Each structure stands twice: as structure tokens, then as C-alpha cells.
């Protein structure tokens, strides 16, 4: 049975798919979104259960390979030191992210001009600024205006609390004369558009049972569905079809019963993240597009960027916030902009974090040799629990073609679609940045009076940020989509997720992914009468 043709088919209901769907709703076009997962249920989130910590390593694990649920597809991670973290369902990664919501900086869009590395973006901070602001309104961002690390931006509601942890680390940063500021957080600190304020559950990274954290299933999607966008869940797209004119005609997908169907569409928008999007494009190879769809440049899947993380934590003699409160409270942009004296180009941000629950305290303490077996276990545990604080550095990853997503020749998902294979190594520049961030992080913690300082670099299970695998640019030989998100090779195919990032910056990308998605939606609306010319 053939489905009715829609005007716009969006593939993926995560951060970018939700934003582009909502923005296009006012065109009154018939818009359909296909999502491989389901709606999350907040009553099922770990914070509503006694085994809230254990669930984070089971069905609410950040690793799709660990979860192995019906919504998940396997990922071959054998050839990467950084493993993939994601959530497959309505809301996508925003269901599991911490709500830490920094923007890219103006310099991030001009890295070739300023620092001689990678490429400049074809758009700039000023172009995205109104879309950042709109997105902040839609998501509900808590912040404190006046951060000297950014151009001025409006605060919508008060920031999340500094707490004892933010105070402790903030004082240390003041002693060192280094920048710090309360994080922009996509977490409501007051009643906001029908959402309740944060009650400090501490489990932002496993779904917010309170609904205070801005995942798109509680922000954009309710608005979009009210505007008659159709969201069809448990529908996994396998490939995009094209016609003899080289235009996309729609997508094949597997419905909830496992039946393969074809969904015709006039416009196709990919919003499947930096791995899911190249996976589908590469799996859409045909006689017309033998190396994969929209891949005349050969760059689909290449230039994969993560943000390699280093984690540095210490312990204090006095109690801190522990497991209470949004885990990330403060950021620092002290080492964000390039300084040649540091021995690397570009930079990194820190996100300062509160403590851990008792189970994670024990697991880390045992792994770090701070918590013995047998006699002494209980006393040592009490020196660690609710007395830890620290930070992770988020290092800018430069694009390199050898870091890539390809299709695994053997591994397939439950529908028989080839699984993605990740090939990735940490570049020299990034490694120097990681090392620098560990040394400075230890310095900060020592200044704050910490003992028993430990670090992990790189953090293995931190492949959250998936960028660069279908990059944006004006030159079709060196990019996959143009400066407003349309594929160079297929004039009714758009990409709006992190795949199109030219560079990664050194901050969490969700705010930028969504701002870019809103910008592309605006371009589609503005150019609607000559969209395919």
C-alpha cells in the first residue's frame, strides 16, 4: 500500500527535527516526521524509581549498544576510543542530555581566518543570533545575563543554583583570576509555558521526570503536533529514493509491524544526527548516486567530530551538593580562544559538576583505588560520598577526513539495515588540548582545597556530540550542503542536524544545532517559490 504524498518529510524527531518541524508548521504545508523510537514516558524515567542509579546502566544507559532496545540500532565501535552515546526516540539526545546549553562563540565560525585551521563556516554568529534567541525562548533557558565570554544575550529566567559546589569552585577560579559563570541551562527554574520548575532531582542525564529539563518531546513537539504536524513513531527509515531528475521522491521505512513502506514527499529533511544521517545517505546509494546520496564530494560520513572529554574530580573535607541538583552548574571559557603559548590551536570549555549518587561514588571510588575492599570500606566511602566535585573539559575537535562513519559490511539492525561503523582517532592538536585541560583542572581543584584528585582522559563513554559528517559550505567539491542546508547534489534534500557543522567549537552543540535548524527552516520559507532552482 502506497502512502499519500506529503509536502515535507522530516526524518528524526530529536533536537533539530523538532525545531524544523515547529518552524515550518506556519507554512500550512503537509508535514510528516518519521521517528524510529517512541514517545518517552516521564513516569518511567529512573528518578521515579528506587533503583534510579542502576537503571542508568540498563534501559536508560547512554550507550545504544548496551541498551539494545527495539528503537536502537547497533554501532560498530571497535575502531574508536570514544564510544557513542545517544537516545533514540521523540526528543532524541535532548532526553538524555544534561541541559547544559552554551552557544558557539563568534570566533568559532571563522577558524580558518583567525587561526589557520579547518574551514570558516559559510554563516556567522550574527546570522544565527536571532535563531539562538528564538530557540532559547522555545526551550526555556535559565541563565544569568552579562557573561563576559559572550556577546550580550537576554536572560529568560534565573539561573540554576550555584549551590555549595559552584561556590567552592567559583572561589578557586577567582583566586586564579580565571573566567567562570553560571551555565546557560535548558532547565526551567520557574513555571514556564506549562512546565514545572526544577526540583533538583539530579538525574538530568536520564530523562527529567519533572519535565523541567527542555527535551523536545516537552518543548517543540507539543506545539508542532497542535499545529497539525504528523509525528509517526516506531518507523525506521532505511533509504531515500530519487527519480531520473536526481530529486528525492521520498523514503523507504519499516513501520511498527516491520513492514517496509514507501513515503512519498516533495521535500525531504534529514535530522538523524551525525551518525544516523550519513548512515541513511550512504545506504541510499543507487545507479544515479553510486557512492551514496548527496555524496559527489565524497564527504558524506567523513570529518566526524566528537568533543573529546577529560574528566577531573576531587574530594573535599566538607559536604557539598552531592547527588542533588542539576549536575552541571557552572562553565568556564578561560581556555576557549586560541593562545599560541598553549601549544595548540583553538580551545576548550569546562563544565563544572556536582557530586554523584552512592552507587556511582562506589563504582568510581573502587576503580580509582580510593575505596578498598574489606576492612576500611565503610570509612573510606564516607570520605568520598557527597564530598566530590569536579569538571569535564570539552575539547574542540578539528575535522579530519580519516575520522568517519561508514556502513558496516556485516553488522545490521533488527530491520536488516546496515549498521554504522565508526573509525576515529584523537588528533595531535586535540590530545595537547586534553592534556592541558587535565593539568589546569588539577590546578583548579588543588586551589579549591581538594584531595584524592583523579582524572580520566579521554572519557570513553562520551561520544555525545556527533558532528561534521555532511558539512556545510559554498563549494560543492568540499561540502555536502550549501550555506542554507540544501544538498548540493539533490535540490529537494535538506540536512539540519549536527552533520552539517563545519567545525565543532568547544562547547555542547545542541543550542547551535537547533539554531541552525531554525535558520534553515527560515531559509526554506523565505525561498519557497524558488527553492529548487
Amino acid at each position, binding site marked *: 500500500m502506497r502512502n499519500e504524498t506529503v509536502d515535507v518529510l522530516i526524518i528524526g524527531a530529536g533536537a533539530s527535527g523538532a525545531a524544523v518541524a515547529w518552524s515550518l508548521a506556519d507554512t500550512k504545508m503537509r508535514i510528516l516526521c518519521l521517528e524510529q523510537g517512541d514517545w518517552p514516558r516521564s513516569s518511567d524515567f529512573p528518578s521515579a524509581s528506587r*533503583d534510579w542509579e542502576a537503571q542508568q546502566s540498563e534501559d536508560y544507559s547512554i550507550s545504544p549498544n548496551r541498551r539494545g532496545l527495539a528503537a536502537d540500532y547497533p554501532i560498530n565501535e571497535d575502531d574508536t576510543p570514544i564510544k557513542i552515546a545517544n537516545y533514540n526516540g521523540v526528543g532524541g539526545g535532548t532526553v538524555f542530555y544534561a541541559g547544559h546549553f552554551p552557544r558557539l562563540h563568534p570566533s568559532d565560525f571563522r577558524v580558518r581566518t583567525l587561526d589557520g585551521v579547518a574551514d570558516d563556516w559559510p554563516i556567522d554568529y550574527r546570522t544565527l543570533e536571532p535563531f539562538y534567541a528564538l530557540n532559547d525562548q522555545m526551550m526555556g533557558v535559565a541563565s544569568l545575563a552579562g557573561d563576559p565570554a559572550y556577546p550580550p544575550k537576554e536572560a529568560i529566567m534565573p539561573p540554576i543554583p*550555584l549551590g555549595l559546589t559552584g561556590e567552592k569552585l567559583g572561589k578557586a577560579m577567582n583566586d586564579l583570576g580565571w573566567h567562570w559563570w553560571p551555565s546557560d541551562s535548558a532547565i526551567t527554574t520557574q513555571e514556564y509555558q506549562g512546565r514545572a520548575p526544577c526540583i*533538583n532531582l539530579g538525574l538530568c542525564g536520564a530523562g527529567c521526570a519533572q519535565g523541567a529539563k527542555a527535551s523536545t518531546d516537552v518543548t517543540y513537539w507539543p506545539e508542532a503536533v497542535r499545529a497539525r504536524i504528523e509525528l509517526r513513531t516506531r518507523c525506521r527509515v532505511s533509504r531515500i529514493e530519487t527519480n531520473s531528475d536526481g530529486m528525492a521522491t521520498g523514503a523507504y521505512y519499516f513501520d511498527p509491524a516491520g513492514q517496509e513502506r514507501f513515503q512519498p514527499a516533495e521535500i525531504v529533511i534529514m535530522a538523524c544526527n551525525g551518525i544516523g544521517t550519513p548512515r541513511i545517505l550512504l545506504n541510499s546509494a543507487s545507479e544515479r548516486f553510486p557512492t551514496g546520496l548527496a555524496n559527489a564530494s565524497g564527504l558524506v560520513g567523513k570529518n566526524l567530530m566528537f568533543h573529546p572529554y577529560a574528566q577531573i574530580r576531587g574530594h573535599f573535607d566538607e559536604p557539598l551538593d552531592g547527588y542533588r*541538583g542539576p549536575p552541571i552548574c557552572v562553565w568556564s571559557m578561560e581556555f576557549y580562544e586560541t593562545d599560541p603559548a598553549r601549544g595548540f590551536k583553538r580551545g576548550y570549555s569546562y563544565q563544572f559538576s556536582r557530586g554523584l549518587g552512592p552507587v556511582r561514588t562506589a*563504582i568510581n571510588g573502587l576503580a580509582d583505588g580510593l575505596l578498598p575492599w574489606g576492612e576500611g570500606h565503610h570509612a573510606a566511602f564516607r570520605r568520598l560520598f557527597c564530598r566530590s566535585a569536579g569538571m569535564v573539559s570539552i575539547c574542540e575537535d578539528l575535522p579530519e577526513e580519516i575520522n568517519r562513519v561508514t556502513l558496516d559490511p556485516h553488522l545490521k539492525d533488527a530491520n536488516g539495515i546496515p549498521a554504522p561503523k565508526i573509525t576515529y582517532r584523537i588528533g595531535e592538536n586535540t590530545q595537547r588540548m586534553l592534556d592541558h585541560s587535565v593539568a589546569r583542572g588539577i590546578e583548579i581543584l588543588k586551589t579549591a582545597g581538594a584531595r584524592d584528585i583523579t582524572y580520566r582522559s579521554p572519557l570513553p563513554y562520551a561520544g555525545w556530540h556527533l558532528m561534521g559528517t555532511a558539512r556545510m559550505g559554498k563549494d560543492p567539491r568540499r561540502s555536502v550542503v550549501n550555506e542554507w542546508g540544501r544538498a548540493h547534489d539533490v535540490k529537494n534534500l535538506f540536512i539540519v542536524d549536527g552533520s552539517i557543522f563545519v567545525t565543532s567549537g568547544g562547547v555542547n552543540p545542541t543550542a547551535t544545532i537547533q539554531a541552525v535548524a531554525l535558520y534553515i527552516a527560515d531559509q526554506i520559507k523565505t525561498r519557497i517559490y524558488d527553492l529548487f532552482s
Partner: protein
Amino acid sequence: MFSLLPAVDELTGPEQETLRCVVSHMIPPSEELGLPGATDPAIFADILRSIGRDLPALRRSLQTVNEMAGGPLNTLPSSEQSAVLGTLRSSHADLAGILETVTVRCYYRDDRVMTSLGMEARPPFPLGFEVPQGDWSLLEPVRLRGKIYRDVD
């Protein structure tokens, strides 16, 4: 047909005995703090129920422990058990990590243990927790330093 064999997704009796021996060395009871050990019947039953996705890795860990012990670990004198487990932790940190994870994720959610740590034995939602705002005036030196981002225009 009814079978007395354990389901394939559970540890066998001998595997359970090896695990019980391991966890007794890991987290003993504390008379001073009034705390149960990890072999407490309720806690150990929770551990067995909650192995989940770690079953294959846990089985490999227990098998390695017994191979290092030259037989079932629980048949050795206590001091020799300790020596075997010490070697395991230093030479097979990954396998020791599995044993630790399956143990502590149940031990540290036991009501008695949580209460002794000053926690309320409840899920975080719906009551949530209090976090102090903190002293916002600490940001004054950061403001005074002024803009630190690069101009690009």
C-alpha cells in the same frame, strides 16, 4: 517439561556461591555503624535479581576467579581467598570492575545503607531536593575583568 535446572539467565548454584564469597570480601558488615554486609540475605538476593545485561561478563569474572583459585573460591581458607581476589583486582581490573558494579548498585540502594548515609530511602521524584542558591556576589571579579571573547568583525 519441568526442569530443576536454573534458567539460562541466572547464575548456577556454584556460581552464586563464588559470588557470595567474593562480595563477602568486598563489603563486610560493620558493627560500629550498624551496617549489613553485601552478603546480607536481602541485599544478596537483590544482587542476584539485578544482574541483567552483565550476566555474560559476570560469568566470565566468576570463572576466572575460580580458575585463579584452582577450584571453587569458597572452598579455600579466607586468607587465600583474599590473596586470589587481590591478584584479580591488580591483574584483571575489568573483571573485578564487573564484580564491583553488580554488588554496589544493590548494596547502596538498600534502605538501611541509605539511611546510614543520611539519605532518605526514596526515589528522587516527586519530592526532589533542596540546593542552596549560593553567593552570586562571587561573580563580581569576573564582571570586572570584562569581555574575553574575540571580535571577528
